[in-house]
């Protein structure tokens, strides 16, 4: 260690001022100062300490004289401090209090640490020390700052959640954005909103972040935190999730908070936020999230209503379209009826023509009746006025019974059924799902040449929780430009024109409507000249439906 008077960078020589200052002068002056103040020499030894060190550090000032300044800092900083100190002595400069943004920590006599603000001033070495160190305990201020920053962050998050929910996008997009804000705010990893659809008496699709929502999700488990929050109508925190729970198993999450989304006393659904880290959700964070959830309830309700209005509007415009197309379709058989009947009434017609006209009128009347029947079906299914008699169904059995009935009608084709054991039941209307199969196989029959096989397969897709049924023919196929519209009403393929008995153009539309009513869907793939495959899927029966089934039985 260098001697004080030989330092080339330090201040050298004795004081030349008119007043001779001593350590006692400093002691007297600094005892009046509000902060803990030390004088330390070049070696880091404390040469002087004012009375305030007792309040800040717990030591009497006399106790500190001769001790090292490092003793007042946590052990982990001590070795580094030595470096800092020699750098300071190399180039001494004043470091004012408050200008330092890093969080400094000091050590109390009782071993606890506290946030400190420290300023350094170099003084004349003739006084026997080089640096005056002023230390202020800022624990409370730091806490307050943190508290204010947290509150501002939360208010900001609340505003962002509100903004997200009010955006013009879809309900799902808005909720996703809101959940992202909440995940960020609560340093969590995963979140979901589930709305209970009262009209359908089932849980609507989950909106979860991160990840896609699965429209076939069978609903939250009875033992999940979400269901508990729903049943109890209050916030549930589980800070160590069961290893077998869905959240732990599928997403590696270990703590979750579930908060009911309410409008007044009316529950709409539940929001769950989860973390990979156990014990993540403190009561304080939970309280805050509950406040946000309270503001989200009404926003979610209005977003749900907004979306419902959009759907209604789309349905109305589709219905208008349907009526205008249907009236067009009705005009052709009507033209035949009006035309031939007028000819029969106003003209002298020979017996043979009379018979011919009557036959054509008869055929067209029947067709008219079929179109009207099908139209009624479509409109009743779409408006939900067609009562669905739901029961637990094995689609494999449904396929068997339909094929048995169709065999006679489809005698020109061999129907091959591939049906591995599908342990899953669906919750559906037997007659309507039979109608779906019947229409698909009838179409395959109509559009494929004699002798070619028609394949029907039943399978379960475990990952998407659906039973799928496909009907494949080796017929003429569907032109690509028609693929999009085959399920629209009154779409027909060219070949129909030459058919003696024309279809109504509503068969596939009815099929789709029935599947929509089952929360299922249908798709088609086709290669022109090689054949077509229609695949439809119906979700596995959900827990609640199984429960209902048990109650009924």
């Amino acid at each position: 260690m260098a001697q004080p008077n030989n330092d080339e960078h330090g201040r050298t020589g004795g004081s030349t001022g008119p007043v001779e200052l001593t350590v006692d002068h400093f002691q007297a002056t600094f005892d009046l100062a509000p902060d803990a103040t030390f004088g330390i020499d070049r070696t880091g030894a404390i040469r002087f300490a004012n009375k305030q060190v007792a309040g800040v550090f717990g030591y009497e000032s006399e106790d500190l004289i001769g001790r090292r300044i490092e003793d007042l800092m946590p052990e982990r900083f001590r070795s580094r401090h030595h470096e800092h100190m020699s750098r300071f002595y190399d180039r001494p400069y004043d470091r004012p209090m408050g200008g330092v943004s890093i969080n400094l920590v000091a050590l109390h006599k009782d071993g606890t640490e506290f946030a400190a603000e420290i300023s350094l001033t170099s003084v004349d070495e003739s006084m026997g020390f080089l640096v005056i160190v002023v230390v202020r305990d800022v624990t409370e201020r730091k806490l307050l700052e943190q508290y204010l920053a947290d509150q501002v962050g939360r208010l900001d998050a609340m505003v962002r959640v509100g903004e997200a929910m009010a955006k013009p996008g879809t309900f799902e997009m808005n909720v996703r954005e809101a959940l992202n804000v909440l995940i960020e705010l609560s340093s969590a990893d995963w979140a979901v909103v589930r709305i209970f659809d009262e009209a359908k008496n089932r849980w609507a699709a989950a909106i979860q972040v991160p990840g896609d929502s699965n429209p076939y999700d069978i609903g939250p488990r009875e033992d999940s935190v979400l269901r508990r929050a729903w049943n109890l109508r209050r916030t549930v925190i589980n800070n160590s999730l069961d290893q077998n729970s869905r959240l732990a198993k599928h997403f590696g999450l270990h703590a979750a908070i579930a908060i009911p989304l309410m409008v007044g006393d009316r529950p709409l659904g539940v929001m769950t936020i989860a973390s990979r880290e156990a014990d993540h959700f403190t009561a304080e964070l939970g309280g805050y999230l509950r406040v946000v959830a309270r503001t989200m309830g009404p926003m979610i309700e209005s977003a749900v209503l907004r979306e419902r209005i959009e759907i209604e509007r789309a349905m109305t415009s589709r219905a208008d379209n349907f009526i205008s197309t249907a009236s067009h379709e009705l005009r052709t058989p009507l033209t035949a009826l009006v035309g031939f009947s007028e000819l029969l009434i106003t003209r002298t017609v020979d017996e043979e023509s009379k018979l011919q006209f009557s036959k054509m009128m008869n055929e067209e009347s029947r067709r008219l009746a079929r179109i009207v029947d099908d139209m009624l079906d479509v409109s009743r299914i779409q408006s939900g006025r067609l009562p669905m008699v739901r029961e637990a169904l094995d689609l494999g059995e449904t396929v068997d019974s339909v094929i048995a009935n169709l065999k006679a009608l489809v005698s020109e084709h061999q129907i091959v059924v591939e049906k591995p054991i599908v342990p899953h039941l669906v919750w559906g209307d037997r007659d309507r799902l039979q109608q779906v199969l019947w229409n698909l196989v009838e179409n395959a029959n109509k559009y494929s040449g004699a002798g070619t096989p028609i394949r029907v397969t039943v399978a379960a897709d475990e990952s998407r929780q659906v039973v799928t049924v496909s009907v494949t023919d080796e017929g003429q196929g569907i032109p690509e430009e028609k693929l999009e519209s085959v399920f629209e009403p009154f779409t027909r393929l060219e070949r129909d024109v030459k058919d003696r008995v024309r279809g109504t153009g509503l068969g596939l539309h009815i099929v789709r409507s029935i599947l929509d009513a089952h929360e299922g869907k249908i798709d088609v793939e086709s290669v022109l000249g090689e054949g077509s495959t229609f695949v439809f899927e119906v979700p596995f029966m959900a827990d609640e439906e199984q429960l209902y089934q048990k109650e009924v039985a």
Partner: protein
Amino acid sequence: MPIKILSVDDEPIVYRIIEATLGIDPRFSLIAAADGDEAIVQAKQEKPDVVLLDVDLPGKNGFEVCKAIKADPETSGAVVVMLTAMAQPSDKQKGIDAGADDYLPKPFSPAVLLDKLDEIAARLGAPSS
């Protein structure tokens, strides 16, 4: 020379009514096309005097067929009557815009169709019945 009529409709039953309406009237002869493209080919080959044209056709629709017939100097002389289920005034306007000469909504009365054809026959100089 009888007046040659081209019926364009994808519904065979419409052809049958027109056929029955004309009966054995020697003033008229009838040919048929079932889609838009066939109609244009037939018009060029057969040079019909009258085209009874449906709108909702496979391939080119009736308005497009009408435009094509009216644009081709070889066929532009044909009288085009739109015979359609699209009975909205806007559809009528579309027919007029496409160059159609007349318009008859479905379902139509055979007597009214025959009146129109009589009129056209008179204009074209055929002896009236």
